[in-house]
Each structure stands twice: as structure tokens, then as C-alpha cells.
């Protein structure tokens, strides 16, 4: 399995990285907080840790730590607009249940 970015997500990430002026890629992860157990994290990466797994999708380097990978393997990250709001969306096949707003989930 792997983690992938849609073309629109990849374009946005490239823009953001270029604007930021530094960073090697994008880190996807999960934290054990939130109303339904786990929450996604999305961060810029300045340096890799030894245990990290790296993927490449549409020209963007995606970095995941091994603990997070088991929960999000197979995820496709998309960039969408909803009304005036815009942002990244996790399409994660492992998810069984989400909280109302979708910010946290269980597997």
C-alpha cells in the first residue's frame, strides 16, 4: 500500500512549500486525541527521522512515521473547496467511524 496525493493536493503542497522557502515534504500522521479517538495531523517536514517511511506522489514527498502508517496506509489526500472554506481532506480506507465534523476518527 502507499499514501497518495491527488493532483490538486500536490499542486497546493508545492505552492505552500515554495512559499515557505524550506522543507523537504509533507508529513501525514495521527494523534491519539479527539472526540473519536484519533486525529489527523498535517505538517511541513524540515528533517526526516530514522524510522520514517517516505512515499512520492505527483512529485511531492510524503513522510509518515511507522505508528501512524498502520492507521492511514492507503490514504489519498485531496485538496477541496467547500463554500468559502478550502483545505486538505483525508480519504482513508481504514476509517470505521468519524466524529460529526470528521476531525477525529476510529479504525
Amino acid at each position, binding site marked *: 500500500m502507499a499514501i497518495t496525493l491527488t493532483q490538486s493536493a500536490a499542486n*497546493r503542497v508545492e505552492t505552500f512549500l515554495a512559499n515557505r522557502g524550506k522543507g523537504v515534504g509533507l508529513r501525514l500522521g495521527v494523534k491519539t486525541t479527539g472526540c473519536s479517538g484519533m486525529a489527523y495531523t498535517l505538517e*511541513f517536514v524540515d528533517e526526516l527521522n530514522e524510522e520514517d517511511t517516505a512515499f512520492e506522489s505527483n512529485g511531492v514527498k510524503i513522510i509518515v512515521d511507522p505508528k501512524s502508517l498502520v492507521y492511514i496506509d492507503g490514504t489519498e489526500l485531496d485538496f477541496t473547496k*467547500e*463554500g468559502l472554506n478550502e483545505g486538505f481532506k483525508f480519504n482513508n480506507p481504514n476509517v470505521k467511524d468519524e466524529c460529526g465534523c470528521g476531525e477525529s476518527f476510529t479504525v
Partner: protein
Amino acid sequence: MALLQISEPGMSAAPHQHKLAVGIDLGTTNSLVATVRSGLSSVLSDEHGHALLPSVVHYLKDGSVDVGFSAQKQQNLDPHNTILSVKRFMGRGLKDIDVSMSPYHFVETTSTEANKSTANQMVQIETRAGIKSPVEISSEILKTLKIRAEKSLGGELVGAVITVPAYFDDAQRQATKDAARLAGINVLRLLNEPTAAAVAYGLDNASEGVYVIYDLGGGTFDISILKLSKGVFEVLATNGDSALGGDDFDQRIFCWILESSKLSPRNAYDTRLLLSKAREAKEWLTEHAEANISCLLSDGEFVNLTLSTDQFITLTANLVQKTLSPTRKALRDAGLTIEEINGIVMVGGATRMPQIRKTVAEYFKQTPLTNLDPDKVVALGAAIQANVLAGNKSDADLLLLDVIPLSLGLETFGGLAEKVIHRNSTLPVARAQEFTTYKDGQTAMSIHVVQGERELVSDCRSLARFELRGIPPMVAGAARIRVTFTVDADGLLSVSARETSSNVEANITVKPSYGLSEDEITSMLKASFNSAEADKKARMLAEARVDAGAIIEAVRAALAADSALISEQEKLAIEAEIQRLSAIKETQDADEIHQAVEALNQATEAFAAARMDASISRAFAGKDLDSINL
């Protein structure tokens, strides 16, 4: 599901705890709101894709309020209830504004719940929705921007950075804050507009430099000179012309149309039509060599003209030149030459005009920064600052703390607070003040650092205490203790005390802004305004008590040394006065204490004269007249 943004490494927010913060450019003509998403600052547009919100508020017949483009359309139809350029009235009194220039019904100020902190000086406008203060009108604009931001970001805002002109005084800044509070916005900080523009260009990442911010908006021109040192911007000088802007360029084209077409003065409809055609032509000429102006007037007359760039430049040459005079003045006030300027930032839609850019480039002998949208640059910079203040960046990113929110000082004898650094001083700052000892032979001094605007230490916030020991024994008042307060760019305060003859020194470092929320600062400030009179009395009482204590101390020391010089009866009389003063000293009446001090002075007059004689005869006894150096 929720939409996520990319955070800085290690700064991911917990679910439902996103620190959404925005920057707001509350402009005279237009306002904007911007935010930082995934590290990129961008302006938030409304449902129709408009980034700019005209700063126009219309009070409708049905009691509702309209803000923006729809309100702007009403300005000629319902002028009394459509408020434009309310920023010009913020924190201003009736005497500060030219009433004849505005269509509004200005009224004397009355204090209401919403404006009580600024009511004393601010003008109000009568509308069909009642009497409105500029604060209330501005808050309508801010509310509209807040709703737009919350819709765009999908959550509640933790706060906003709102920009104000660098020349705004305390009343105008306070009015802006009140407007935000009324709109339900937590103000993270007010930021000077030129500083925001400099931040948008990332100039704060350089270590130091001097920058000129050239801001030609719709109706106002502002020039600011900023000095950056250690990541903090200091405003060196500001100047400008409050009646010069892009609208004047439209007016020139309008006049040219009338002249070229040999038109008589037009009615209101034609004037509006021709002005909007003039504006279109101006904007077209930014990227094209010539503009076509054609329209059908109300009397059936057809206008069809072509305006070339060269003609446009000639028509408006003196307007462009008019911006250089305030620029020269600002440079002179800052004591700088053109060669010392490290960069020029262009702000305001009117700076898109090529002739403006060319003139500025020629004047400063360097190309101005223009790659960000000049309409948005201030809002973009405010958003970057809001993002830092909301805590979305790591601590390593420097916080732009440009002024001291509350005065810093120390406790002096009698529980009085002596201010050393006054509030609103720009950072970094260092101030020194000299103090002395109160008792003969005093060898140590306790230094109590306090923060606040009140006169008594007990009403201020205690920050730190330390002691200066090893002062050589001297008579009271002879020691010179130099206390230096230094606040660095991070808002860190260090206080050092040094006795100048012996060079003994002690110091301490404190962080004054720690733990003080904006609300606490505000309530401390309000308390200082409300209790100004009581504080003054308390200070006078404390000072009188200190005086009384000092004279009692001195007379007792004299009696102990020289009581042989006076009769027992005189001695008893003096002691009685001391007793009386000691008792009165504990009362609450400064005047009575002063009188008792005076009484003791009189009672000791003969004694003082006797002591003087005695010490002179001691000094001269057995000495040859020639050996005395007179």
C-alpha cells in the same frame, strides 16, 4: 469531513482547537481580511469573489444594516444614512473635523455603554437607526469581515490583528479596539499599517534596515519611514496628505473629458457615469497604451474619446509630484538621506499606476517593491502577524512586540510608584534614573519593580524585588544610585542598580508581559483613568508623610547631638512638635501634615541657628583669620 491545513513541524492543533486568526485592514475606503493557511498568507474573498469590502455602512429603513458594495450604491440616494470613510472620524471630536465637507448630521457626544471609554472626545452621527458613534459604525464593517472569515475558515476566530495608520493617536487606537470588541473580535494586537506592509514583504526577516512605505490609497496618501533593528520596527517619521488619492486621478480624467467634449457641467447621474468611466480608463492605462472612453449621457449626447498614456501622465503630473513633498518632509524629520533607504514598499491601489512607480523609483534611485498586490499587502502582513500571535508558529519566530503596554517603574519611599519607562514606548528601550538614600548611613536599598499606571505601588502589579547591598555609609541623600531599566526586542525587562561612587551593582531580569492578558492590561488602564484623582491625592499624602518622616528623623538626630545648645524648655517644645507631627502623619490629610511640618520647622528655628553658630565657631576656633579661605 473537516478540511485540514498544513502546520509547522510539531505545531499540529488538537481537533476542534485550531487557532484561527486573521489580519484585518480596516481602511478608509476599503477593508480586507486575510489569513495564513498552510503557511501562506492570503486574502479571503466573499461569495462573489470580491476581496475588497467597501468601508461603507448603510442604515436601512427596516432597521437592518448593509455593509460593502450594496451600501456603496446608496451613497447618493440616501446620503444621510450611508456612512463613508468613517475611519476619518475615529477617536475625533467635533472640533477635529471639517463638518461642512460631510453630508452627515453630527451631534454632540453622549456617553453610551458602547463608547464610554472614548465618549468624551468622539463625534457622533445621527442616522435613522439612531445616533451612532464612529466606533459602532466601524464595528459593522468588522462584523461583516468576521462573518466572512468564519465562513471561510470553518470555525470561530481566536483573534485578529487590526491595522491602524502609524500616526493614529491613543484615542484613535482605543476607538479601533472598542469597535473590534463591539464586533465580538478579540484584538491580538493593533499593528501599524506600514509595519504590516513591511511584514508582508518579509522585511522583518532581515536583521536591520530603513524602509519607506509609500501608501497612496483611494483618498489618502501616507508616507512612513520605518527602521528595523533586531526584528523590531520603529516608526521614524510619518507624513502625508489626507486629501490626496486615486480618486483625484479619476477627477482629472473627468475634467479632461468635459473639456475635450466641450460639455457643460453635468447632472449627478452624468457625473457619476463619467467618473466611473474615468476610473475604468485609469485602470486600463496601467497595462495599455491608450484607453477608449465612450458613453451615452442623459441628454442623448454621445462621448467618444481616446486617452493615451502620455496624455494621462501630463494630466496628472502635478498630483504625482504632490506626493513627493510629504516624502521629503518625512525624510527630513527622520534625518535621513535617500542613500540610507534600504527599500521602498508600495501600498494602495493607486500605486499600480506606472507613472507613480516611475517617479518613486527616480526619486529614491531604486526600484520599489511591487510584486504583492498593493491593495492587499497590509492585510497580508497583518495576517502573518496574527498567525504568529495566535501561537501557530514555533517560539523561534520572533514576536514583533513594538510597544510597552503598561508603564514600568519602581517603588520609592512611601509606597509610591515612580515610572521609569512610560507605556507605549517603542521597543527596545533603555531608561535610567537616579535615586538616593533616605537615612544616614544607609548601606542597602531594596528595589521593587512594578508595572502599571497607578500612583501607588499597592495598585500596580509587582514584577520583581532585589536588593542593592554594599552602599558606602553616607548622609541621607548623598548616595547616587543609578537604576537602569532595559526592555529588549523580546519584551524582556532587565533592571540594574549601581551606586555611582563605589560602583557596587545588582541586577535582575523579568518578563513583564508574562501572564498579563489584553483584558487585564485594559482594566488596569481603565482603573488608572478612573482613579486619577484619588491617585493624585494618595500621592500627595504619601509625599507629605515622607517629608514629615524625613524632618522628624533630622530633628531627632540634631537633638541627640546638640541638645546642650538649647534650654530644657525649648527642647520640650521641640519634642512636643515632633510628637504632634508624628501623630498627624498617620492621618489622611496632606495639608495638615504640611502645616505640622511647618510648625516643627518654626519651633526648631532658634535651635537651628544655635547649631549653625556653634558649628561655625567650632570651625573657626583657634584659627588665624588668614588661614580661613573665604
